[in-house]
């Protein structure tokens, strides 16, 4: 029964037009990717492949200090170097560029180049534009800056209490606590009062980032007549170009943003607010087209998207029989020096904060602390991976404390197949699923009983072999309410509610189909997926379809491949556009066939008259519809051309409660996954070897099983890195000490085992074809699964894994303290 605080939420009726079907010809097939030939032959056209006539190159001077007042900048020696076009300081840039985008409310001002103070190591202090990158870098070395050092905030617990010069944004926030709010969703107090067991753990989630192999960059040009043209590897160009125009102090029609293929994003390239503004401003000030590409160090130090950096204190209330009642947690998140996406990364996980379990109420206190570190931003899972870790770790702990089998405890609390759509205490829903079947399939896939007996045998030999098992949610398809619903109720800021995705579809005179997308390719096979949907709709082959991209002047709102939304959203837009164009084809075709429109249908690439073999191919109709106006009646419905723009809005979202008693439905297309990891821990070294790994996912209807598996395996590898290797280390002085790919260890081919995958398909009743998103994949589960496995391996020592990553030295320290003679 739904809790009274959720009573006002009305689940909107389904807008699905294309149901899941077993007879699909293209959807569900592992066709080769249409993107691949260009990418395999060096024709990917990434940002650094772009070159413009007379183009100059930028390099930047970055703050070596974590917190310092900029007293004086002497750029004369740099300016004197032959080949230097200009040297620009933050104050000079501010003449043409206002502050960068902040979704926080009230906002925290952020300039693409520091003006008065540097607030973290790596913040841009000055930039050089020169004839080539080598000269620009030489000149950077010649800029002299006098700093006055200020107290550094590195530890968030200490930063919270800083005063005076230790406050990072003294004119906008009185202290470094940028945000501190408490929420109860449902009867949290009552549920804890009736609990028979409360399991409480403190947990730590370390900072890292998406770290795509390609860094971020832009190529910008400016002149008075045309305004700005900025090409970058941002995905947000068509979503809020007018906001960026405001940042650049020009009329929106004087900024054209163009996207290019991304060499990976993982969230990192979603917006690129600093790079776009910086590069554009330099182009205007230098009077030259300018290219700026981050080097790897710069990407580490000053990207948009460092991930969560959290300290949880979490409690799960249960009955003795294992029934879960309530979840309550305090989370302190070290957001770094700015609040780019506000505290959205703590809103996102509230979509699935209770996991797949029926938990009656949720309480949260969120404290966002500002420190002298790079800003946080999007990173694959947008904070939800941490919530999965917290709930799964609590459930394992509860199983131990209750003396219950951990699978049995999970099954006892899981939402049952007949209970969907199921509303959780925050107001979000799980649209559909079959969690029990996913768990069963994973156990079979890895042959769990066999591993359990091997484990028993290993223990008799003194080997530390462990099995981890987690059952996690993967929310997909967000409503942008998640970006602001945690902001203060009275000043929510830019409280937008549209997160559409559009396509432009056109059939040319030769009968070929051209589909224009709004946001660039980031690696996730979006072109292949769109091709498959269009093949399904028109009954044509992939070779009949070309995919292109709009820019911010020719396109429509599109947010792109993030938040596991793109496949669902763009498939919806493709269905709308295809339905409209098929109506046009039928009208033209029926006329040519001398039939009634009601008697024809589009099947297998042709308009066919029901029950006959009379037909016209799409090509036969397209040449007429595009070039032979006089062959048709002189009425507007036969106007020349076969083209349409279609926009798909979120299929299932509601607004948050005005006082945030709930957050509304905001991330409802719910995938589910069970990961089982088998590891062996070397007690002497703390090294973890993954012996076997199974990942079973249910993301509804699968468009391309091969590419989905790619996401699952790649995401799991990413999550294994999160669990075992990846951490950005800032020291007490705010120095980022491992900001290179040698010391920040991403998984290599030796670190990732063969991962077994399988799928269950519970189609969503709310999306076209029943598709759910799967792009954040294994990273939702792998950290919790690996932690669970290590803990199981070390169970005889009583060690709990409540922190990620656990690289060998950290694990060895835990083992050492557990085995130290008393």
């Amino acid at each position, binding site marked *: 029964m739904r809790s009274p605080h959720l009573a006002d939420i009305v689940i909107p009726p389904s807008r699905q037009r294309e149901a899941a079907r077993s007879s699909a010809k293209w959807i569900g097939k592992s066709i080769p990717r249409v993107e691949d030939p260009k990418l*395999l032959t*060096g024709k990917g056209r990434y940002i650094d492949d772009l070159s413009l006539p007379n183009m100059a190159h930028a390099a930047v001077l970055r703050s070596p200090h974590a917190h310092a007042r900029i007293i004086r900048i002497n750029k004369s020696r740099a300016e004197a170097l032959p080949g230097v076009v200009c040297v620009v300081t933050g104050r000079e840039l501010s003449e043409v560029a206002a502050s960068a985008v902040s979704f926080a409310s009230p906002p925290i001002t952020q300039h693409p180049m520091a003006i008065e103070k540097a607030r973290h190591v790596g913040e841009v202090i000055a930039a050089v534009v020169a004839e080539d990158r*080598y000269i620009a870098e030489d000149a950077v070395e010649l800029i002299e800056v006098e700093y006055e050092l200020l107290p550094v905030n590195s530890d968030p617990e200490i930063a919270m209490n800083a005063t005076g010069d230790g406050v990072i944004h003294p004119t906008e926030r009185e202290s470094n606590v940028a945000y501190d709010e408490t929420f109860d969703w449902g009867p949290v107090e009552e549920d804890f009062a009736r609990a028979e067991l409360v399991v409480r753990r403190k947990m730590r989630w370390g900072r890292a980032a998406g770290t795509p*192999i390609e860094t971020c960059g832009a190529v910008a040009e400016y002149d008075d007549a045309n305004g700005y043209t900025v090409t970058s590897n941002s995905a947000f160009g068509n979503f809020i170009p007018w906001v960026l125009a405001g940042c650049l102090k020009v009329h929106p029609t004087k900024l054209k943003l163009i996207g290019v293929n991304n060499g*990976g994003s993982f969230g990192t390239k979603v917006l690129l607010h600093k790079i776009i503004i910086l590069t554009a401003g330099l182009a205007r000030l230098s009077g030259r087209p300018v290219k700026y590409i981050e080097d790897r160090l710069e990407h580490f130090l000053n990207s948009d998207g460092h991930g969560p950096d959290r300290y949880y204190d979490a409690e799960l209330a249960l009955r003795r029989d294992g029934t879960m009642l309530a979840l309550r947690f305090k989370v302190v998140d070290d957001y770094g020096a700015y609040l780019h996406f506000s505290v959205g990364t703590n809103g996102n996980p509230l979509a699935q904060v209770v996991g797949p379990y029926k938990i009656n109420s949720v309480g949260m206190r969120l404290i966002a602390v500002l420190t002298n570190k790079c800003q946080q931003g999007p990173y694959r899972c947008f904070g939800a991976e941490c919530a999965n870790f917290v709930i799964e770790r609590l459930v394992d702990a509860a199983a131990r404390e209750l003396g219950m089998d951990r699978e049995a405890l999970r099954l006892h609390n899981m939402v049952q197949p007949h209970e969907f759509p199921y509303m959780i205490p925050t107001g979000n829903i799980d649209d559909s699923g079959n969690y029990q079947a996913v768990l069963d399939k994973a156990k079979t896939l890895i042959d769990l009983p066999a591993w359990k007996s091997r484990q028993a045998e290993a223990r008799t030999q003194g080997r530390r072999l462990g099995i981890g098992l987690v059952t996690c949610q993967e929310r997909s398809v967000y409503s942008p309410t998640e970006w602001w619903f945690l902001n203060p109720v009275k000043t929510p800021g830019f409280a937008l509610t549209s997160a559409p995705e559009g396509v432009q579809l056109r059939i040319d005179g030769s009968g070929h189909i051209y589909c224009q997308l709004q946001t660039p390719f980031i690696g996730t096979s979006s072109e292949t997926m769109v091709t498959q949907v269009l093949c399904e709709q028109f009954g044509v082959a992939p070779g009949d379809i070309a995919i292109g991209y709009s820019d911010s002047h020719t396109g429509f709102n599109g947010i792109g491949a993030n938040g596991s939304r793109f496949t669902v959203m763009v498939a919806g837009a493709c269905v709308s556009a295809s339905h409209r164009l098929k109506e046009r084809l039928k009208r033209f075709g029926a006329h040519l066939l001398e039939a009634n429109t009601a008697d024809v249908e589009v099947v297998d690439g042709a308009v066919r008259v029901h029950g006959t073999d009379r037909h016209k191919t799409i090509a036969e109709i397209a040449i007429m519809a595009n070039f032979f106006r006089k062959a048709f009646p002189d009425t507007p419905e036969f106007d020349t051309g076969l083209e349409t723009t279609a926009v798909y809005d979120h299929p299932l979202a509601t607004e948050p409660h005005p006082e945030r008693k709930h957050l509304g439905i905001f991330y409802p297309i719910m995938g589910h996954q069970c990961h089982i990891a088998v590891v062996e821990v070397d007690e002497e070294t703390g090294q973890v070897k993954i012996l076997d790994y199974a990942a079973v996912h249910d993301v509804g209807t699968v468009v391309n099983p*091969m590419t989905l598996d790619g996401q699952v395996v790649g995401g799991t590898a990413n999550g294994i890195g999160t669990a075992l290797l990846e951490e950005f280390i800032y020291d007490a002085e705010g120095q980022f000490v491992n900001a290179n790919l040698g010391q920040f260890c991403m998984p290599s*081919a*030796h670190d*990732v085992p063969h991962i077994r995958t399988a799928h269950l398909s519970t189609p969503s009743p709310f999306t076209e074809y029943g598709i759910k998103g799967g792009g954040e994949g294994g990273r939702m589960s792998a950290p919790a699964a690996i932690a669970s496995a290590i803990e199981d391996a070390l169970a005889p020592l009583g060690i709990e894994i409540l922190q990620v990553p656990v690289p060998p030295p950290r694990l060895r320290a835990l083992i050492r303290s557990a085995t130290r003679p008393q």
Partner: protein
Amino acid sequence: MKPIEIAFTLNGKPRSAEVRPRVLLSDFLRHQMGLPGTHVGCEHGVCGSCTILLDGRSARSCLTFAVQIDGSEVETVESLGTASALHPIQKAFQEEHGLQCGFCTPGMLMVARELLEHHDTPSEEEVREAIAGNLCRCTGYQNIVAAILSAAAKLRAEKETTV
């Protein structure tokens, strides 16, 4: 510093160029020779995206000066197949879904080529060892390994047909 004249073989064709001594081979290939297929991911020799073959051996072009290729043979990803006639290794990468964003791919292809040149029946472990110096953030390596094993089989079959 003055430019130095160098002569070398690039993707099978004799070439010469003037290049300043400090220019990296990666920049030279990409921006002076017009071959953007060699990608630059880190410029400190870790990620492996910029891997090319220098006299048949894999080398990081971001850690090599262009002047060092004087008198040498250089092969880049552009030496393999074309979109309409993919090299068997490229074909295997497509079939096995051994790439997602494509940025690390040229480096992976070149180390695969080097491996298969010397070893036509590598084991999975040997393939992993060969690519262990190349980072991929998208795939988790599984399908890259599968692609290289499949390419080995393709190349063996090709050799048998030509014999």
